[in-house]
Structures are given as C-alpha cells and as structure tokens.
C-alpha cells in the first residue's frame, strides 16, 4: 500500500498558515509523541541549533530547536540546517520505509546549510528503535504508527 498524498483542500488550507503557530503545533506534537524515545540521546552537539523543516507540497515551514527538555518552536529566521521534502516523503522517512540517501539521489530530499548537523541528526534518529519509540507514544498512537508502517510495507 502506498501512503496517500495529502488531500488538496487540506494542503491549500495548511499553506495559508503562518509559520509560528504551525511550528508551535509541530513542536507540541513532537514533544508529546516523539520526545519520550528521544530524550535519552546525547543532544549535546545539537542543542540550540536552529532547524527548518520545509514541507514542500504544503508550503509549510517549521522552525525549531532541540534542548535537554525537548523541542522548542522558533520564530522565522535563519536556520542552521534546512530539510525539504513532501509531507508523504517525510512520513515515509519517519516510518522507516525509505532511506534518506535514496530520497536524496532521487531529488526528493534536500539538505541545505550545515550538512554535518543534518547528518548527525539523521544518524541519531536512525539509531532509535522504531518499536521502542512506538511503545513510548501516548494513547495507542504507537500502535497506529506500527500499523501504518505494516500496511505501507505490503
């Protein structure tokens, strides 16, 4: 099964959102869902660096940094490293269905700015076990994530 593309009306709506509230919403979700399985990683080389995630098909730009106590939203501005891909490709990366190098070769993922920082984060996230991360998610979300991955692998 392929993961579906974002429905066009929703994409149009999302593209009108300003960055700050979107970054805050993203960070809140990240802290709730992902942070429990990421808090034990050594973030010392990454703390305080500014990340920008550009969801190209939604026209969405998310700004945030990572600290010892979780993600923090940032106002628009300069980023140390920027990742650009579609919503679907970001989802496929998060579900471990796709390898970032593969997406890069196919020009579906762009990493601009501090490449070393981008690679560091990519490698740190790769070292997290998806099952463990899913087990740490609240309210049965982990089961949904593993189910999605399972369906997409078929």
């Amino acid at each position, binding site marked *: 099964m392929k993961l579906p593309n974002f429905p066009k009306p929703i994409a149009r709506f999302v593209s009108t959102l300003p960055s700050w509230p979107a970054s805050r919403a993203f960070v809140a979700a990240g802290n709730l869902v992902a942070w429990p399985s990421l808090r034990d990683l050594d973030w010392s080389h990454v703390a305080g660096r500014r990340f920008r995630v550009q969801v190209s098909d939604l026209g969405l730009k998310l700004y945030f940094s990572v600290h010892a106590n979780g993600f923090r939203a940032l106002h628009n501005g300069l980023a140390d490293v920027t990742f650009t891909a579609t919503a679907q490709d970001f989802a496929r990366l998060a579900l471990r269905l796709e390898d970032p190098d593969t997406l890069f070769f196919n020009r579906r993922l762009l990493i601009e700015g501090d*490449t070393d920082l981008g690679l560091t984060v990519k*490698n740190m996230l*790769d070292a997290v076990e998806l099952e463990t991360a899913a087990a740490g998610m609240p309210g049965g979300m982990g089961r949904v994530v593993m189910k999605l991955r399972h369906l997409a692998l078929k």
Partner: protein
Amino acid sequence: MPALLELICPAGSLPALKAAVDNGANGVYLGLKDNTNARNFAGLNFDAKSLAVGIRYAHDKGVKVLMALNTYPQPATLPRWHQAVDIAATTGLDAIILADPGLMAYARKTHPNLRLHLSVQGSATSYEAVNFYRERFGIQRAVLPRVLSLPQVENVVNNTDVEIELFGFGGLCVMVEGRCLLSSYACGDSPNTFGACSPGHAVRWQQTPKGMETRLNGVLIDRYADNEKAGYPTLCKGRFDVQGETYYALEEPTSLNSMEMLPEMARLGIAAIKIEGRQRSPAYVAQVTQVWRAAIDAVKKAPQTFKPNPAWMAQLNKVSEGSMSTLGAYYRPWK
C-alpha cells in the same frame, strides 16, 4: 565445509543491524564511534552498549558480527586502535577487518585466536599480496578491491587458501581503494586517517535558480537540474569543465550491482558477498538484504538457470546512487 556466498551486510546502527539479521544476512559488519573505521560520521556506529546488544541479537540468530578497523592509525593515537582490537577480541566478535599491517601484527600477537580479514582498503589485488598477508599475519579472508575483472579474481582464488570476499552491491569508489587522495586533496582530511570520504563538515548543498549545487570545501563539484538524479558529494563523481566541455570526467554517480555475476562467483567458490552502506539507514539495509538473500538462495539452488529477477533489479536501482547501477570492473573485456 568452506564458506560459500555468505551475505555480509552493513550496520551503521543497532536498528540497521537488526534489519540485516531479520532479512537474512549471514554476517553484519560494523564500526565503533570514532575514526578507527572508514565510516566515521557523527551519530553513526556503535558504542560499548549498542555493540553488546547487537552481538547478542546477531549471535542468537546465528549471524556473525565483523568489526571494520580499516583506517590507518597515526602515532599519537595508536593506543585507540589497539584498544579497538582488544574490544573486538573480548566482546565475542567473529572477525576484524583490517587494512594496516601494523595493526594486523598487534592483533596477531595479542589475540592469536581472533580471526583477521583483509579490508578492501588494504588494496591487495594479486594473490602474491593476499598470500603475503596470510603468511605474515594469518589473515583468513580478503576483500578484493572493485578493480578486478572476474577472470582476474579467478586467478587470485586459484592461487590462495585465503577466503575471498567480493563486493556485491553499493557505492562504487573510483577504483583506487585505499590509495585514493581525492577527498584528502579537496578537504584536507584523508579518508584513511580521518575515516570518511567527503566528511559532512566539508559538504554544502544549495538549491539555486540554476539547480542544486554541491560544494566540497567551497569548490563547486556538481550542479543538478531539477530532473537529474544525484550522487554522493565526492570529487570522483563531480562534473568538471575539461577543455570547454562539462561532464563526468572520472565516473558517473552510480552504484555497483554484480548480481548477474552470482553464478560465476558461486563457481569460483567466492566465500562472501559484501553489501556496501554503513552510512545508510535501516530501510536501505532491510530492502537490499532481502533482495540479495533471495538472489543468493536462488543461485545456490539452480546456478545454471539463475537470472536476476527484474523486480530485484528495480528495487536495487531505486536505492542506487544516480538511480542506476553498473557491473563495474567485474565484466570487462580489457585487462
């Protein structure tokens, strides 16, 4: 029974190791989190804890664990390389993959029971070289550089007792493995001592109106139009202006895929097939291991009628650099 076509897969992290084991690898190879191995990228590789978990996971399923210690120690930091050899010997690893003769001598003397493999970085292309490492250091397997044609491989195999491992799939070097100075020239860090070709700190990608530009230490090495596939940011795969014409002057971004040579490799008694890619994610390891497991099983069952399944080849091309692959030097009429 001697090893035949063992599938050796890359692991840059614990999830990648598990992906290799779960999808049918016979062995995984990994490195420590420092420049004792040639994939020294931030956040990648194993520390003592993940190594112990990884070894247990692999051994529980009968899969071997090999450690790459394939860079060249420098005098000031030699104890770290020795320590890495000691770690390998005391944690139950099945073999270490070495390039430096000094390190081989240390391993041989200090841990005589530790199995030694000669790394591709050792750049041994003749049976004389391979046998030298056997006589002096007791190596039991050699990974041959991707510069030999299969008849040349056969000549090595026929004149040595050392097991021979060949690259099956993955990133392709510019054919002077272990002796390449291109990254060193551009970045100031030699892959053989720093442990990485085109290290992240030297790489910059930028989307510009003319296309996506790749710079290595400030030098423009390629510019991709929107519809063009990309490759790794290495000098050997850059496009350069040569007498007024801009083209891939050294090699195109492409990956090695030797799958159609598998029957020939089985006939030669090749001990193992290596998959490149410790820098890549668990998804790649799972996809590539699965395909090669199926192919090796098929060739062992019916070598005469073996043909690579088009779906396997499509899957491998998808994850390849530049989305294409080559037989490299294995098949070429010239010597």
